[in-house]
């Protein structure tokens, strides 16, 4: 027999002031199944909780209703309280007679009957509660970091330092990412390589870190603590163990193409290292252009290699491994500025993007660090910078602010002045956003060095006598502006990787309308995702500068570490559950599951004299978050949500409509 105890809370005068609690208690006692009712001034206080514990024992209560505040406030309190008296914590239900009743109705003649209804609902539900037990799942204490840019490197180092194994998967032949392409970093102007490459080496030499370059994640299944990941490591055509990185193969290779690392401003060979400090410091053969692969000829690199490391027959390797947590650090890319026809990018070689300028400034770049115009190699005297190219533009680009461009443009202007003191710089801007430590000062410094900031947009750029005529408007002065420039630099927005949605699907996470991965909560859970065990670091989540990226990477690492610090995870017991005797196995439920938590399962059963097998749905309780969308998709009523069952909800409706 079910024995429900109802505890009506006064909450001082918060409830008792506008609800006749005596009457509520009196009515509650009449509800079938209720064997004990008491009132407390403050049920959540120690004496209040003690009286619940005492009543559970004295009256052999097997269900508890606390008519008090919102369950969002104290459900946990009372569950723990019941558990300490030996009752399963999921046999407690709250009747919210404060937030939903006493605080919004002042007339006792309406609030009291409403409170009674609310208690009736809670009793109806609690009578259909069953004991639930969180299950535990083991944790594979190895982390996967997808992306080997600064975010991935930082996350990997932090996790490995805590003593856990990390695998970094990077699709390029080297780690380093975007930061490796930069020359100097704002606002301190320290050299990007000088601060990045030591970290790359640290990561590569760390005993807890394994780096898989030229590799991509193909599939992720499983759930927090137990992901199964398939990685394809593409054939490098070079035996990494034998190669001594002497570089003679690169020197002798007859085929070349535009260098991706140098943003197409220089060339690289078919066998190449993206940049000299690449990690691993081993060349890769680009099979798309290598003559051995395209024409079946050549093979010079193999001939000249002193250690016999070139291996044309190497094949892709597919690895399937288990990980407990995943950090997505897949980065961002640059907006395709060609859509701004008025700027002439692609038509005029001296209109370049910010990243291209980085390569021109960099001493490892195609011009050995001398800023020269791409068209004729001349040193530019006048440089125009245009900000917000592709960002803050709903028509041609994206509405969001790309965040780092204001500062990197200020940096470019400063570096220009340092390299070419006689040069003059113009910056066309919409607003200057310099929020950040030492950022405003840095921007001011660029102004003090003589950079002229023109508020307004550029309407047209056209070539004239070896110059680029930049026409725009100074909206502060209300004047037309025309600058004869030698070089124009477009501050292209950071945009999501083109395959970000595909990666999001593999990870089972959501992404916003642009393709940036979505965090679980914008303020309170900024590095978690809605899929437990998957964390975000860096620009895959939104535009960011380096300090912010590194901070987020460390935060993601901290989340991974705290996950791994547990020997096992306990799961929310309010999950979907299948009655296999009812399930027809249509699996339409799995369609609506946001967590890919429903799988098919083959069961064997007796049907008359025969043994037959059939398919049913099966819920992976590690993945299920308990939303219940599947229960409505299920027509035969086989799918139910523990804690919010069909029986319970129908009984609640019944109780409220009495």
């Amino acid at each position, binding site marked *: 027999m079910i024995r429900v105890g109802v505890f009506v809370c006064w909450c001082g005068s918060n409830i008792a002031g506008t609800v006749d609690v005596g009457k509520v208690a009196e009515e509650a006692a009449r509800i079938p199944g209720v064997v004990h009712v008491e009132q407390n001034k403050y049920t959540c206080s120690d004496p209040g909780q003690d009286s619940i514990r005492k009543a559970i024992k004295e009256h052999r209560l097997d269900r508890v209703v606390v008519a008090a505040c919102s369950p969002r406030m104290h459900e946990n309190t009372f569950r723990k309280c019941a558990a300490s008296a030996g009752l399963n914590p999921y046999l407690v239900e709250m009747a919210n007679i404060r937030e939903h009743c006493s605080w919004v109705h002042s007339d006792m003649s*309406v609030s009291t009957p409403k409170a009674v209804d609310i208690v009736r609902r809670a009793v109806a539900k609690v009578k259909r509660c069953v004991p639930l037990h969180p299950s535990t799942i083991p944790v594979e204490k190895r982390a996967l970091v997808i992306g080997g840019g600064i975010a991935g490197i930082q996350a990997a180092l932090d996790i490995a330092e805590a003593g856990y194994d990390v695998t970094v998967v990077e699709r390029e032949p080297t780690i380093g990412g975007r930061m490796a392409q930069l020359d100097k970093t704002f606002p301190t102007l320290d050299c990007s390589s000088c601060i990045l490459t030591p970290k790359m080496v640290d990561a590569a030499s760390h005993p807890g870190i394994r780096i898989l370059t030229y590799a991509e994640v193909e599939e992720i299944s499983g759930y927090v603590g137990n992901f199964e990941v398939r990685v394809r490591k593409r054939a490098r055509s070079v035996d990494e163990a034998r190669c001594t990185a002497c570089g003679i193969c690169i020197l002798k290779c007859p085929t070349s193409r535009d260098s991706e690392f140098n943003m197409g401003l220089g060339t690289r060979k078919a066998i190449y290292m993206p940049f000299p400090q690449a990690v691993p410091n081993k060349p890769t053969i680009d099979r798309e252009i290598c003559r051995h692969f395209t024409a079946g000829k050549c093979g010079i690199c193999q001939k000249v290699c002193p250690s016999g490391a070139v291996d044309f027959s190497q094949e892709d390797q597919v690895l399937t491994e288990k990980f407990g947590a995943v950090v997505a650090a897949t980065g961002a890319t640059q907006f395709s500025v060609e859509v701004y026809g008025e700027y002439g990018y692609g038509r005029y070689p001296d209109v370049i993007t910010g990243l291209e300028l980085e390569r021109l400034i960099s001493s490892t770049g195609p011009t050995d660090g001398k800023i020269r115009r791409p068209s004729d190699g001349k040193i530019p005297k006048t440089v125009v910078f245009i900000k917000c190219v592709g960002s803050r533009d709903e028509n041609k680009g994206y509405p969001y602010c790309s965040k780092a461009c204001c500062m990197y443009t200020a940096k470019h202007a400063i570096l220009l002045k340092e390299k070419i003191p006689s040069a003059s710089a113009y910056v066309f801007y919409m607003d200057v956003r310099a929020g950040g430590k030492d950022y405003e000062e840095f921007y001011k410094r660029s102004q003090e060095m003589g950079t002229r900031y023109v508020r307004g947009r550029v309407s047209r750029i056209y070539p004239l006598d070896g110059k680029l005529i930049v026409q725009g408007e100074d909206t502060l002065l209300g004047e037309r502006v025309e600058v004869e420039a030698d070089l124009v630099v477009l501050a292209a927005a950071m945009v999501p990787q083109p395959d970000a949605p595909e990666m999001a699907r593999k990870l089972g996470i959501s992404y916003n309308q642009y393709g940036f991965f979505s965090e679980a909560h914008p303020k309170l859970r900024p590095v978690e995702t809605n899929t437990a065990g998957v964390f975000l670091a860096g620009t895959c989540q939104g535009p960011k500068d380096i300090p912010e990226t590194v901070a987020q990477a460390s935060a993601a690492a901290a989340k991974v570490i705290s996950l791994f610090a547990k020997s096992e995870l306990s799961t929310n017991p309010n999950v979907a559950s299948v009655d296999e005797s009812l399930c027809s196995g249509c699996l339409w439920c799995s369609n609506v599951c946001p967590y890919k938590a429903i799988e098919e399962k083959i069961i064997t059963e007796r049907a008359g004299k025969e043994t037959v097998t059939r398919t049913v749905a099966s819920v992976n309780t590690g993945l299920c978050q308990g939303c219940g969308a599947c229960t409505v998709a299920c027509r035969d009523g086989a799918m139910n949500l523990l804690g919010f069952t069909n029986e319970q909800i129908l009984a*609640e409706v019944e109780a*409220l409509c009495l």
Partner: protein
Amino acid sequence: MSLDWQPKIVGFTCNWCSYAGADLAGTSRMSYPASVRIIRVPCSGRINPVFVIRAFQRGADGVLVAGCHPGDCHYSTGNMYARRRFLIARRFMEYLGMDPARLEIHWISASEGQKFQEVIKNMTDRIHAMGPNRKMREIL
């Protein structure tokens, strides 16, 4: 129908947004008619349109279905399914002769205590003007 007749509204709210929105109306002491009785579910995607029919059968004069705004679902997409389901289910109820004003669907976020208050006020006023529901109802 007596003058002080109060409609009975059953409200299905998701735990994360709309239930919290109703809580906020409470903590902000925003008063509204005592017509609504709330059933808490994790997500609007958990609300079966059949529950709504059951409420009308058993004597509800109105039913409120409330969830997170599209795009803000705690479970990322539950309310999107709810939106489809209730779009066609509500039209179908209307087709059976129910007044569609008796079933309202609203997106109420955890910060919209005021919206919750307004929804209940307006819904109560409308249903009050219509009088008790007699359609699909068991006992009058």
